[in-house]
């Protein structure tokens, strides 16, 4: 009996106090939702959708943490690349690149989103390499530098969104305005394509099958990479650079690879996010996505030095789950103000603070 209790205690310790609190909070919220008469299946469907939308953005944390640069606070850079990719894909469609495909057909949607993903990959990988080169020069301070580089990129792209010569009527302001719209409707492109493909509907309960499968597919690819030779090399370089050096590993290159994969995933992540939302959000919208992604992976049990796919899946589910459920519940309880936004601030920053104070890496 005592042993069982001990094992339970150890298990709880391994799982981590913050996760237990957050899990409990999640269930309390669900319970509260049921009590105030919310439509639970509909709520859970929404949680699933947000899980899918955020999955790849959070997944972007895994290569960066494993390669030793820590949680990638600068995903805004990858997001900028991804948005650029999505915009170019819209532009191509506008100028007839997709030819005679039926705009309402499945093929059209799939081609459209694949095009966006590929372009996003291309742009954000390129940015990722440059970003990796920078991060190699600021070892030990990656987190704060990447945060501000990320912010700078958001501001820089704000200017670019005004200046870039896009033509598509979907993207630019209609009447003689200058620059791109703040939100761009993707209904003519890849908006909600994956949400709807093979969608399972049981009453109010909806599973966005294709979206979830896509997320799992990317998780699987990263899992495979982690088990490959270079994946293991990169992890070793991240966790002990001296060890790696003694085994002939180019630590700087491994870090660049990790940063690039992370940034590329962020690019794909924003395309997935936008397709789930049905809109492309430009300007300051990506500013805080980095923090949410970092918080999600930490909630899932990662530390600033170790992360696995499981942490991504669990963390995204918990974090987005809480935010999704909290919003209607809060509106029911207190109609004023945006409790969900406040929760996001408190939970995401609280968990990051907790992780930082536990890391004690730089404390000497």
């Amino acid at each position: 009996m005592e042993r069982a209790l001990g094992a339970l205690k150890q298990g709880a310790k391994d799982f981590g106090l913050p996760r237990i609190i957050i899990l409990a909070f999640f269930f309390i919220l669900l319970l509260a939702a049921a009590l105030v008469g919310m439509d639970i299946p509909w709520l859970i469907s929404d949680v699933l959708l947000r899980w899918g939308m955020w999955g790849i953005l959070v997944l972007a944390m895994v290569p960066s943490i494993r390669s030793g640069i820590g949680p990638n606070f600068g995903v805004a850079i990858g997001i900028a690349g991804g948005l650029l990719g999505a915009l170019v894909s819209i532009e191509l469609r506008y100028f007839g690149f997709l030819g005679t495909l039926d705009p309402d057909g499945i093929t059209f949607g799939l081609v459209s989103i694949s095009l966006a993903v590929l372009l996003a990959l291309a742009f954000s990988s390129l940015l990722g390499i440059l970003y990796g080169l920078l991060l190699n020069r600021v070892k030990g301070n990656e987190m704060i530098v990447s945060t501000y580089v990320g912010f700078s990129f958001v501001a820089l792209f704000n200017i670019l969104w005004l200046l870039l010569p896009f033509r598509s009527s979907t993207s630019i302001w209609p009447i003689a305005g200058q620059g791109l719209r703040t939100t761009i409707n993707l209904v003519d492109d890849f908006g909600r394509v994956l949400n709807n493909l093979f969608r399972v509907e049981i009453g109010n309960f909806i599973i966005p099958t294709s979206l979830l499968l896509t997320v799992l597919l990317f998780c699987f690819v990263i899992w495979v990479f982690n088990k490959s030779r270079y994946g293991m090399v990169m992890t070793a370089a991240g966790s002990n650079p001296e060890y790696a050096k003694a085994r002939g590993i180019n630590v700087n290159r491994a870090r660049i690879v990790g940063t690039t994969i992370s940034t590329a995933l962020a690019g794909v992540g924003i395309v997935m996010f936008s397709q789930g939302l049905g809109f492309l959000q430009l300007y300051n919208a990506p500013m805080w996505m980095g923090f949410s992604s970092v918080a999600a992976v930490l909630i899932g049990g990662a530390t600033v030095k170790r992360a696995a796919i499981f942490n991504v899946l669990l963390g995204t589910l918990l974090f987005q789950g809480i935010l999704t459920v909290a919003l209607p519940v809060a509106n029911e309880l207190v109609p004023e103000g945006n409790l969900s936004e406040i929760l996001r601030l408190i939970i995401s920053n609280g968990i990051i603070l907790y992780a930082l104070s536990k890391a004690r890496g730089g404390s000497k």
Partner: protein
Amino acid sequence: MMEEQRYVLELQHISKEYSGNPVLQDVSLTVKKGQIYALMGENGAGKSTLMNILFGMPVIHSTGGFTGTIKISGEEVNFLSPHDAMEAGIGMVHQEFMLIPGFTIAENIKVGREDTLPTLPSRVFGPDLERLNRPKMNADARVALDNIGLDISEETKVAGLPVGYMQFVEIAREIDKKNIKLLVFDEPTAVLTESEADQLLKVMQSLAAKGIAIIFITHRLSEVMQVADYMTVLRDGELVASKAIADTSAVEIAELMVGRAIEKLVDDDKNTKVSTEQNEVALSVKDLYVDMPGETARGVTFEVKSGEIFGIGGLAGQGKVGIPNGLMGMFSSHGDVEIFGEKLNFTKLGNALSKGLAFVSEDRRGVGLLLEESIAHNIMFGAMTTKRDYLSNFGITKLLSAGRMNRHAKDMIKLLDIRCVGGGQRVGALSGGNQQKVCLASALTMKPRILVVSEPTRGIDIGAKKLIMEYLAHLRQEEGLTIIMISSELAELRSICDRIAIVSDGKIEDILAPDASDAQFGLAMSAAAQNSEVS
């Protein structure tokens, strides 16, 4: 009573153990006023532990304290912190400078002990807000600097000073402390040029002449012969000898430091020495320079024959550890190195590995292992990266083959008797000896042509030590593996090596047979001292 007072410091029957391992056993020594007292011994002989006890370092108290008594000027003391020791008039000049570059010399001398004048706010909020009395600080600093003959403005910033001057600023800081009675110099000349070292020794002598007792920790025999009045040699935590310098010689001291009865670490039947004279050259090193801080190699030349166990020994800090680290590319190095006739390219990371050199680092936890990963992962890793072993096909790519990895780990665990729950256990949770076995297993898994082991027995228990040594002998005997072993423990080298190179001052001083006399080893190790005495 007056007789007692002659001693500034009396250490009586000091013993200390760390979790059951004795590191100091019944050491007693006494230092007189104005005496320069040399404390000698190899790394790990117990010098630092003794000084830690003297200074009341927290590491001593947190590990169960010590036994024995310490008396300062005849009075028994028990320091609970280094600060207590400083209050009692004991100072330390560190090997690494404890100076702040952005501060002036005077500010550095007075750091933490600034002279102040009261201000209006300080009367309300306490002495923290008293303002600095810079004229007084500068004047005091001037006095201290004049005392050691350093002719430089006390308002100069430390940042631009030559290294040698920094040492003197440290000394000035210590003698500025009131009632300083005893100064400990911890390898003060290690980073100095020759002329700076000379000047430092002169300062030590003049301080001693003013009545300050000095404990001088150093590896440089020449300096001991030059300035010390008395010396004590520690070895394996025991006091080997205490002698007046007038009654001894450099050779004798070196012998005392390293000599000991050879323990039978390896049974003779397990280590039949075969002649390797006729074999091909496995490793040839010419003029190797390695820029490893504290262990610089300056033009090392030697050859190792295939199937040989080649030992590299020498006192700490002389550069023996730099040699393998340079070969493996851990620090910037140059020279002509050939591995089985192929030239080593220093600019290419991992070149030595790909030419069949495997390395077990002396820094087990820092360089040797991924502490967070499993035993199996650590064992497989080197072979996986360099030889692409333990991977199996998975579609267009190759993934880790967990099955093969675990099977091999199981074999290695059995072979080397690694005490663990299983191959999946985290390496960080193992004891030092078992971690070392994992390092060795990892190196062997790479199927090297030459195995380089650096300090393979440092900090591990005797059982593991014996097993590792026997296994190394076995590898050579059964598989003809060429082994290069670097160790501070001469006894170990002498028990399995065919030839032993002694490194002194960054160069190979001599290559000796394992059965050469203690005196010969002593002579080679103290060579730097001999040379400078002659010159």
